[in-house]
């Protein structure tokens, strides 16, 4: 059993999800509340990974992060080396790849709150920060749950981006999906079965528990 790949996958998905919640929340908030003309342009850029082939994302990331790319030059100047074919590189790729899966549900949840609770909070002397923490976050909780679960599951399931910028280094970038691919290539169907069936069960549990949880805590704003 490829416990190393399983562990690596879970680590990648957890770190990616945490970063996505931190980065995605302000983006979702801005998309939900802004009246800027640029809003839908930014929304489209965030949504791009939904439609782009993962290999395209991986390819451009490789160029960007590689030794000749602008980001690569920057990381090298900082003495960090380059990101492709490292675990941090995988994290960067996963964050970009799973961004829409986290931003969209949170944005929807923020939008569903409407304007009124924020107006009420303001007339009750709550500063904008206060109403964000005390009103927006708790009321958008179902959206955060959906976003986190989708982001996590989607990262666990990614393959194309990983293969392009991560490669296949055991303990560093070899995640479950890549391990399955390896086993099939080597005609080790038994091992491929084990991992694949595990993923199937995992995915089912994730989706089912999300539906159940959503129903239980989903106090929809009326």
């Amino acid at each position, binding site marked *: 059993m490829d416990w190393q790949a399983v562990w690596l996958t879970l680590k990648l998905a957890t770190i990616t999800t945490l970063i996505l919640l931190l980065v995605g929340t302000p983006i979702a908030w801005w998309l939900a509340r802004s009246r800027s003309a640029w809003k839908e342009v930014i929304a489209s850029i965030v949504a791009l990974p939904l439609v782009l082939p993962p290999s395209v994302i991986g390819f451009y990331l490789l160029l960007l992060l590689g030794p000749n790319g602008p980001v690569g030059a920057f990381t090298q100047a900082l003495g960090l080396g380059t990101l492709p074919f490292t675990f941090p590189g995988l994290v960067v790729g996963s964050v970009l790849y799973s961004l829409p899966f986290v931003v969209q549900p949170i944005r929807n949840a923020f939008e569903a709150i409407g304007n009124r609770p924020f107006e009420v909070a303001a007339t009750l*002397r709550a500063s904008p920060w206060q109403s964000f923490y005390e009103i927006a976050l708790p009321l958008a909780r179902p959206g955060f749950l959906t976003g986190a679960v989708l982001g996590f599951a989607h990262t666990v399931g990614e393959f194309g981006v990983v293969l392009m910028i991560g490669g296949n280094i055991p303990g560093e970038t070899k995640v479950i999906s890549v391990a399955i691919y390896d086993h099939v290539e080597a005609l080790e169907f038994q091992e491929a079965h084990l991992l694949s069936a595990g993923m199937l069960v995992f995915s089912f549990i994730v989706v089912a528990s999300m539906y159940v949880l959503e129903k239980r805590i989903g106090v929809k704003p009326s």
Partner: protein
Amino acid sequence: MSGLQVELKHSLGDFNLNVSFSTQASGVTALFGPSGCGKTTILRAIAGLLNTHQGQVSLNGQQWQADNYFLPAYERPIGYVFQEASLFQHLSVRKNLEYGWKNIPQAKRHLKFDDVVELLGIGELLKRKTVKLSGGERQRIAIARALLTSPKLLLMDEPLSALDHGSKQAILPYLDSLHDELGIPSLYVTHDPNEAARLADEMVLLDKGKLLAQGKASKLLTRLDLPLAEFDDAAAILDGFVSAHDDTYHLSWISMHGGRIAVSQVNRPVGKHARVKIQAKDVSLSLKLHSDTSIFNILPVTIIDTHDINESQLIARLQLQDEQTLLARITRRSAITLGLKEGIQVYAQVKSVALI
């Protein structure tokens, strides 16, 4: 400068708002007018929920809005009651009440938590979930929540309009007690003349974004040059005090300078302020004082002016000795037969009175 000064200009599509008025630093002022006249827009601008970019707002000399200056809503010492109660549904009733309360430094809390809870009769509701409350209960909590910020000005945007008749009647006494006991000046938006008559001391009359008139509610309701007097249920309000109770016939006497009126007995101590509403169609006029009539609420009045409503009816404005005014809706035929015209003294026979 004390009181509220408002001067606002705002355009939105076809709608142009351009008003300027000021109100006293006490009592209830009704912003009254048909839907679309801009009353809610004005209230939102005063609260800081809407920036009109042009105009100015100040309370007791403190600027809230001026050229290039706009104090955000959360820094204005106001309480706001919305049309729908808009309780925070992720918080319990108690937490809803405490939400504004906790944002006010202790030294600036003028009202006690328990007093406000008692005033609005919501002690029983504190432990309940907001979704399990009736419309009237929710609105009372919203009012208490606004009061607990110890506002210097209370803004109410048709707080009763989303309620059914029963809940409305149940909540009105609470609004009265706000008025009587707290002395927080309030602006009350309404399109219902009955609500305005019952609650308001002052009225600001609006139409199509413009100010029509402003003044004491009792005067405005009876001015014949304003649309109010032409309503089918046009009414006058008279302020007086409870002067006596008649236990034999279960009546209470409300006295004012220049007359007294009997109403069905009320549970209010002698000397207490009372306001009655008299509909124009319930008032008839006679030249002599009749004692052989079932109507015993008869007030000596002087006709100030008359105004034809249609070909058969006119409305007369009558003045009591203490200068309070009353309306009478009579036929033109009677007016001509009796020779009723401006300046003559007559007796107003009041068929029905409502204590409000």
